[in-house]
């Protein structure tokens, strides 16, 4: 029960990663961390997941990289980033004074890539946890393959696990036949938490030019259009594993976020929703607190997975 005047506790955790609020800025939607700083009080969100970094610099895909579609956004950025050497030299130090959790994101094209970049990034004090992006749909050769093949997903996770003791969050793809199957393998390989889900593969064709609109031809769909797909993915993963889940996919409001939490997510990320309202992660956190208060509940933990009869307790 809540005593008069006290606020419900919305802090949460993903393994050993403690979060003061259950909302994070999703990777790829927050850049290298500084772009939104003038607009958002980061002390009021749980954390930021940085843009993915790879072993070598990447120029990214040719333009156009964005196509707005009904209730969503198609993107094919192609992991543009300066590579781990330049990233460590120029970017990471800027995260030192962030008043929220900072999660580094690692992408790769081989098991060795994931191990190498994870080890170097996780060694930095500015990074509180690692997200393993094994599910980018927008890079040629083996971008998403890791998330779509249980053996490779397990191998990438084991390789990263072997080089860091910091919390390891593995980001899964919705573009699979059985996401629960992949989730079990990644849990067994040593992941501390799962990010569910990355974008859904899609494309759009310009009928005037009779050609695909994206420079990369195919892309990843995000935004409200994929929310029901993502809620189901969280629901299925929550029944399959005992490690905590970071839910994401089209979350714009607290009501959206609560669907993920009731399905079994311990925290949520907001991505495309930031683009129209960079303060959405704050509003979502406030709305979750209000939901708990209206039901006279004292903590977020009391509602995680409560709509999901197959949710495994004790995480």
């Amino acid at each position, binding site marked *: 029960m809540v005593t008069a005047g006290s606020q419900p506790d919305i802090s949460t955790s993903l393994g050993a990663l403690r979060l003061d609020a259950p909302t994070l800025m999703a990777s*790829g*939607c*927050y*850049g290298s961390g500084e*772009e*939104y700083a003038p*607009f958002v009080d980061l002390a009021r969100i749980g954390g930021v997941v940085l*843009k993915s970094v790879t072993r*070598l*610099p*990447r*120029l*990214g895909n040719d*333009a*156009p*990289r*964005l*196509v*707005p579609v009904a*209730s969503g*956004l198609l*993107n094919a*950025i192609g992991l*543009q980033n*300066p*590579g781990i*050497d*330049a990233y460590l030299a*120029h970017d990471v130090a800027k995260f030192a004074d962030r008043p929220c959790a900072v999660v580094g994101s690692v992408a790769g094209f081989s098991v060795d890539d994931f191990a190498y970049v994870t080890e170097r990034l996780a060694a930095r004090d500015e990074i509180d946890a690692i997200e393993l992006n094994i599910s980018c749909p927008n890079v040629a050769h083996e971008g998403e393959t890791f998330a779509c093949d249980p053996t490779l997903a397990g191998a990438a996770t084991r390789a990263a696990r072997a080089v860091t003791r910091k919390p390891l969050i593995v980001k899964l793809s919705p573009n699979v036949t059985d996401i629960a199957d992949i989730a079990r393998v990644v849990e067994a390989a040593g992941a501390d938490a799962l990010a569910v889900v990355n974008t859904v593969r899609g494309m759009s064709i310009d009928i005037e030019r009779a050609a695909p609109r994206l420079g990369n031809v195919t892309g990843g769909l995000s*935004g*409200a259009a994929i929310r029901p797909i993502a809620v189901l993915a969280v629901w299925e993963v929550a029944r399959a594993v005992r490690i905590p889940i970071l839910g994401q996919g089209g979350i*714009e409001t607290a009501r959206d976020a609560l669907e993920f939490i009731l399905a079994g997510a311990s925290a949520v990320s907001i991505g*495309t*929703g*930031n*683009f*129209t*309202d*960079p303060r959405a992660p704050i509003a979502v956190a406030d709305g979750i607190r209000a939901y708990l208060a209206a039901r006279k509940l004292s903590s977020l933990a009391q509602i995680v997975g409560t709509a999901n009869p197959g949710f495994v307790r004790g995480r």
Partner: protein
Amino acid sequence: MVVPPSGERVATALGVYESEGDRLSLMLVVVGPRTRELALLQAGAGLTLLGPLGNGFDLTALGDDVALVAGGVGVAPMLLPARDLRARGARVKLYYGARNAAALVDVDLFAALGVELALATDDGSRGHHGYVTDLLERNGRGHDAIAACGPSPMLRTVGNVARSLGVRAQLSLEETFACGVGACWGCVVPLDRASTQAPAFPAAADGEVRAYVHARICKEGPVFWAHELRW
């Protein structure tokens, strides 16, 4: 970036047309549901606005004889520069093209500033029957510099014409934007690595050395020097 009251979840990027005191004017053309909603707003309605974002034309680098080149709603970011350039005594000529005479808006405002006009319409209902870039190609020699805004095909032509005339050109580019603040890397254009606007980037990319990098139109731009673009 402007978000209409319905909360349609993709913002629309608009140029500032006029600004005086605490008043701000935005110009838009209705092309879809978002711009339609904005156009139908009643006095007193609220809007969410994030900005100003990105750079603008560098007026100090345009010299004393300036060609402003506008296509359609690309005229929006031209009025304030025209005013400032005229105020410092520069000669200004506006090359302005649109679909038809009705779509050539506020020509009088420019004329009142003492801006010379060169008009073109696709249907010949006013001015030259054809592209505004035809006029620039024909009469553009002698300008110190060009500043242009409009559809991408027009801007590419302006860049080519500028090169043949031996005149430098600043182009204000258009793209689909998501974040508007440089976070998502969705609105990029290939830019010469040596450009002062090029984002810092190591020389080896994907194992190859390229002469260009991808610059963000929303952050490093939207205005770039035509001769530095590699599009």
